[in-house]
């Protein structure tokens, strides 16, 4: 009974019945008619859901046989698991879609009929196993679409609709022709039968027949360049219709392609190529698009292209077991996200990307928007991420480097334009207001629901991978904290602190070796920086805490990762959360986008490398890195490049200064001192796994060593030339990370200890300085150093922080920094890198330039009059600073409590060369007693201090003010003109300033320009003329045919 009631055939029956009944009911009661429609759609959902449930439970596919005759002699329908999955999705979307656009539907009974029939057509297309029947359902769907698109009958929609009609009729004409030719050759129309007898389809005639069928279906999937009409439709159709066109109709065609794919074995490369071309080209063009609806169109087209590619390639390599995961994942992600986005587009007024800023008036929507974008971009934890991971891994197993490269390139472009869109929505101001009151929650609730579904799907897909339980913890912790994001700042801070502390307590003991040390660095470092987060009294920081917790937890999972997937997942989560945190800055839209793009590019390099390793070793464990290294150096180089990007390596550093400069001031501390260490950790993951091979990689390591030092020098010089305080520190970070890269590349015990020591150092002093600077910036409201000056009188503690910080950076004894320098030179000399040591010395000398500039122009010299009443930094900032200072002093006094564990952690990989005599550390080349030096300096410092004090007792010492200076017998007039601060090292610029020319920036701008130009050239196809589009369709099919014939 239940089975009969829920027979899939009922979908068609009910739809047809409703089609007849609706006009009659509508005439009586439009309201009841609506209820009937909803009931029908709900019934569709129930049927598909029921079958989906039973099929998942292992039930056999439902075969529907018409006319009582077995196939192939009669039309049959099938309702298997795949069909159920697609139809459940489509029908759900249809139900919500109808609800979404009910205002428009309820006016006319015909609209309701069309809608129902439309959905039925889609259902039919998915279910049927008969080629001609497919044609009929195609036509049913198409005709309903034609009408629904032009439902509003405005001029643009009519134009778009007519182009759609032309394309649609051409496509269906070809489909019909192809079907008939196939029938002529094989005598059957049943797809399964055709597949069985496919050897009968031969010769150019057969190829042409298949080509026509395939071409028709592909054209409906909107391949580049024959897709102009589709884009017009997406842009012009009512949002609800466009949503279902993008997700429902396309799903049906994709499914149709899936069904006939077994017939097309020899076509597979061409199909894959056309899909990939579409994917890449659409994403290129998307770079130039400013209308969000059309952008969604490009995105849809691109995603469909990717799905076609994935489908074809997986079939080609007989990896059909991954089709549900890959194509299904891509599909469901595209499906839910695109539907949600089109629905959102319907709410928003205006046709500029910036108009999406209206969403900010409803936070839940902007968050939903973010999730949808993230899902489309293929970032975790959404389904696309898993799908792409699997796709890349599977393809790489068959050495398909080219395919993977272009898939990743397209994905990168997708990230660019999607997040540019998000950035505009977050940053720009729309003069129009979001009006969602009239339609109630009907229009936006489905969006939120779909976001939830996306998350759920992501989780379901994650469970199909071998991942630790905690892998997705960052996401859930973030979501959990997002729920309490409305509470007070202090409360949220405490909650976040508790979460992080609890996580640290859980995580750190479970780590060992270097990971343990990184854990001890990163998590407590994050805690210290988080303490500072409430320093801006009275300023709400929406989203900060959830993202911060997510970031820290993803760093933790990164440390705990044992598989490549776990590592990559944590890496991506870290990227996303840090990107979002950066984008919270006031002017951070562009910098954060650049940061994201570079990070994702880096992540893709890592992904590529992982895939190579997987292909070589067949293992997903991180330990496989070491085995892969035996075969080829490429994974090593790629991984290094990926981490290098994250660290802001030379040439790929262009994201770093602006991202550091524009994000919130305390978060800059986090970025610099903690997040950049993720890159260092990555290096060490690779290094520790490949210890055995490092000896054979002399050339690579030498190159890396030089690059690190050039990075150190260039960073220092550029920092010295910066006027913006945060740029200065950002360049300084680049420089300091350069040393870490070099010491890593030294690859001996001293080198690695030095790298770790420098990393700890960098964490401590950059955290310290950035927090001190955050306080300064909070008080003086300018980032230009020449606009500051003399603040030592107002902010003595901040001054001491910066003082300690710069002494540490510069490596002047007796503080911590000297240990780093000492280890660095020892390691360099031990390795025999003598000229490099000279360069390192130069770089560290240049560092003095910016360090003095930093402290002088801010704290010393002349104070500006407007800063007379500036107060000391808030306590929230001072507490972590003092903690950092205490740590620095403690490590300086007792360097062995730092070096010893580092040495022990490195020892398993590199044999230790250190000898300890009490506090005296002896290496092959030198010796250093940090404790003694500290004490000697301390005592020596007291001697002149006491002397001066004694003498000054005998003098009249008058404390004077800032203008009481010898000014060549004149008097100073304004502090601004007396403070020597602007263009501090003008002569340095004259001498070797050519080294600071922004060539890297120019290069990447060129790349960006080039990408946009490519996009602009590619979209020349889309003239808007229906005949051109029709011509392109013919051209496309022709070229496909030729390609197939040639291959």
């Amino acid at each position: 009974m239940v089975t009969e009631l829920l027979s899939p055939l009922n979908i068609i029956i009910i739809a047809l019945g409703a089609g007849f009944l609706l006009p009659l009911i509508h005439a009586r009661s439009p309201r009841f008619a609506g209820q009937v429609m909803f009931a029908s759609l709900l019934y569709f959902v129930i049927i598909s859901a029921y079958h989906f449930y039973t099929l998942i439970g292992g039930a056999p596919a439902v075969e529907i046989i018409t006319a009582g005759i077995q196939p192939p002699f009669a039309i049959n329908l099938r309702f298997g698991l795949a069909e159920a999955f697609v139809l459940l999705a489509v029908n759900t979307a249809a139900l919500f879609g109808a609800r979404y656009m009910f205002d428009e539907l309820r006016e006319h009974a015909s609209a309701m009929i069309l809608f129902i029939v439309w959905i039925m057509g889609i259902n039919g297309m998915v279910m049927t196993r008969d080629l001609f029947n497919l044609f009929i359902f195609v036509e049913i769907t198409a005709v309903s679409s034609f009408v629904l698109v032009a439902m509003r009958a405005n001029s643009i929609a009519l134009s778009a609709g007519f182009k759609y009609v032309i394309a649609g009729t051409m496509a269906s004409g070809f489909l019909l022709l192809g079907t008939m030719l196939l029938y002529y050759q094989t005598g059957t129309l049943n797809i399964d039968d055709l597949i069985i007898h496919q050897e009968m389809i031969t010769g150019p005639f057969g190829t042409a027949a298949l080509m026509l069928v395939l071409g028709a279906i592909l054209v409906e999937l909107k391949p580049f360049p024959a897709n102009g009409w589709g884009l017009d439709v997406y842009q012009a159709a009512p949002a609800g219709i466009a949503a279902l066109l993008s997700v429902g109709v396309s799903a049906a065609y994709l499914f149709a392609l899936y069904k006939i794919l077994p017939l097309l074995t020899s076509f597979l490369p061409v199909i894959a190529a056309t899909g990939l071309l579409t994917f890449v080209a659409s994403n290129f063009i998307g770079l130039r698009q400013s209308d969000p609806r059309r952008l969604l169109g490009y995105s849809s087209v691109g995603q469909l292209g990717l799905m076609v590619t994935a489908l074809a390639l997986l079939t080609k390599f007989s990896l059909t077991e991954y089709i549900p995961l890959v194509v299904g994942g891509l599909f469901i992600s595209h499906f839910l996200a695109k539907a949600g986005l089109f629905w959102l587009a319907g709410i928003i007024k205006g046709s500029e990307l910036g108009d999406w800023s209206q969403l900010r008036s409803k936070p839940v929507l902007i968050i939903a928007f973010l999730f949808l974008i993230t899902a489309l971009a293929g970032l975790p934890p959404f389904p696309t991420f898993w799908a792409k991971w699997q796709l890349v891994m599977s393809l790489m197993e068959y050495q398909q480097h080219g395919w993977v490269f272009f898939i990743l390139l397209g994905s990168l472009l997708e990230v660019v334009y999607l997040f540019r869109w998000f950035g505009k929505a977050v940053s720009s101001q729309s003069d129009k207001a979001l009006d969602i009151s009239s339609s109630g929650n009907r229009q936006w609730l489905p969006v939120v629901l779909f976001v939830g579904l996306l998350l759920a799907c992501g989780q379901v897909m994650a469970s199909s991978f071998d991942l630790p339980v905690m892998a997705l913890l960052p996401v859930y912790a973030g979501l959990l904290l997002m729920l309490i994001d409305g509470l007070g700042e202090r409360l949220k801070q405490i909650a976040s602190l508790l979460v992080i502390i609890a996580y640290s307590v859980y995580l750190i003991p479970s780590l060992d070796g270097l990971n343990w040390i990184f854990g001890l660095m990163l998590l407590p470092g994050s805690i210290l920086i988080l303490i500072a987060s409430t320093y801006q009294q009275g300023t709400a920081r929406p989203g900060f805490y959830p993202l911060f917790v997510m970031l820290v937890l993803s760093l933790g999972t990164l440390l705990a990762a044992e598989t490549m997937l776990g590592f990559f997942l944590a890496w991506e989560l870290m990227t996303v959360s840090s990107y979002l945190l950066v984008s919270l800055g006031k002017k951070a839209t562009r910098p954060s986008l650049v940061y994201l793009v570079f990070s994702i590019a880096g992540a893709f390099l890592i992904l590529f490398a992982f895939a190579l390793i997987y292909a070589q070793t067949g293992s997903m464990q991180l330990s496989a890195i070491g085995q892969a290294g035996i075969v080829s150096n490429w994974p090593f180089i790629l991984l290094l490049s990926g981490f290098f990007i994250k660290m802001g390596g030379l040439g790929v550093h262009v994201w770093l200064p602006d991202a550091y400069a524009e994000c919130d001031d305390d978060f800059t501390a986090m970025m610099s001192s903690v997040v950049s260490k993720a890159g260092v950790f990555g290096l060490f993951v690779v290094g520790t796994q490949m210890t055995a091979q490092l000896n054979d990689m002399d050339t690579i390591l030498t190159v890396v060593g030089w690059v690190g030092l050039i990075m150190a020098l260039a960073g220092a010089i550029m920092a010295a030339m910066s006027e913006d305080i945060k740029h200065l520190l950002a360049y300084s970070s680049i420089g300091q990370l350069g040393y870490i890269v070099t010491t890593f590349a030294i690859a001996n015990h001293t080198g690695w200890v030095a790298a770790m020591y420098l990393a700890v150092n960098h964490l401590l002093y950059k955290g310290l300085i950035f927090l001190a600077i955050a306080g300064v910036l909070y008080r003086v409201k300018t980032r230009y150093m020449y606009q500051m000056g003399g603040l030592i009188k107002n902010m003595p503690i901040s001054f001491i922080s910066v003082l300690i910080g710069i002494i540490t950076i510069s490596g002047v004894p007796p503080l911590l920094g000297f240990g780093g320098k000492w280890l660095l030179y020892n390691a360099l000399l031990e390795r025999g890198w003598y000229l490099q040591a000279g360069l390192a010395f130069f770089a560290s000398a240049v560092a003095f330039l910016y360090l003095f500039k930093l402290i002088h122009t801010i704290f010393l010299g002349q104070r500006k009059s407007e800063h007379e009443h500036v107060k000391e930094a808030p306590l929230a900032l001072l507490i972590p600073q003092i903690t950092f200072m205490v740590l620095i002093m403690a490590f300086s006094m007792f360097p062995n409590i730092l070096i010893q564990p580092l040495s022990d952690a490195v020892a398993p990989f590199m044999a230790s060369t250190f000898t300890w005599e009490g506090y005296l550390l002896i290496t092959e080349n030198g010796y250093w007693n940090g404790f003694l030096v500290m004490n000697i300096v301390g005592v020596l410092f007291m001697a002149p201090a006491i002397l001066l004090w004694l003498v000054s007792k005998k003098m009249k010492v008058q404390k004077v003010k800032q203008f009481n200076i010898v000014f060549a017998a004149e008097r100073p007039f304004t502090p601004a003109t007396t403070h020597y601060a602007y263009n501090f090292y003008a002569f340095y610029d004259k001498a070797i300033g050519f080294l600071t020319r922004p060539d890297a920036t120019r290069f990447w701008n060129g790349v960006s320009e080039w990408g946009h130009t490519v996009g602009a050239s590619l979209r020349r196809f889309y003239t808007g003329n229906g005949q051109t589009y029709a011509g392109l369709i013919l051209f496309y099919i022709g070229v496909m045919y030729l390609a197939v014939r040639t291959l």
Partner: protein
Amino acid sequence: MNKQDKNPGNNRENLIKLENAGLTAEEQQLFCDAVPVPYEPYSLEFVERFHNWIRANSLWVLAFGTGCGAIELNPLMTSRFDANRFGVMMRPTPRQASVLIVAGYSSVKTLKRIIRSYEQMQGPKFVIGLGICTINGGMYYDSYNTINCLDRYIPVDLYITGCMPRPEALLAGFMELKRKIKAGECDGANRYVKDFDWYKANQKKVIKKWDMPDYNW
């Protein structure tokens, strides 16, 4: 004032402030407004005498050419006159100098800078008036822009007359200055502080645009 007199050296904060009327309210925040106080000689006499001997043999002259007589200072360091051998050295900054040579006429504008530099020198400090113009105006006695008697504006320890006096005369002047310093007769810095109001009144009478603090610390 009394309190400071009793307890020299330990008062970093003065009780009475300078008026600094020549400055705007904003500028007054940027200049120190403490009143200068005299310093006492060392309590032990032999220490004081020792230091006077040292001071006399280490004369640091402010390299500040105030007028035409500055041309006579340059040969002083050459091999012909070689003031170095008497412990005379040129210092480029008044903070470090102990001798101010006002060389020749001084216009009102220059006087202002002389006062500033003199006040910025750290005691004990000595002033030599070089040339007749510093004594009574010399040939510029009736110029609308040149002062006549230097010692009305800053305390002068020694005058060397002539127009211009030759470097030999200047060397002789140094010898005399040394003698006076050793004898403990050069307390110009303290005189300046004690008669501060008188000096300031004289200075302000001629310097009409007084846009600096009353005492240039």
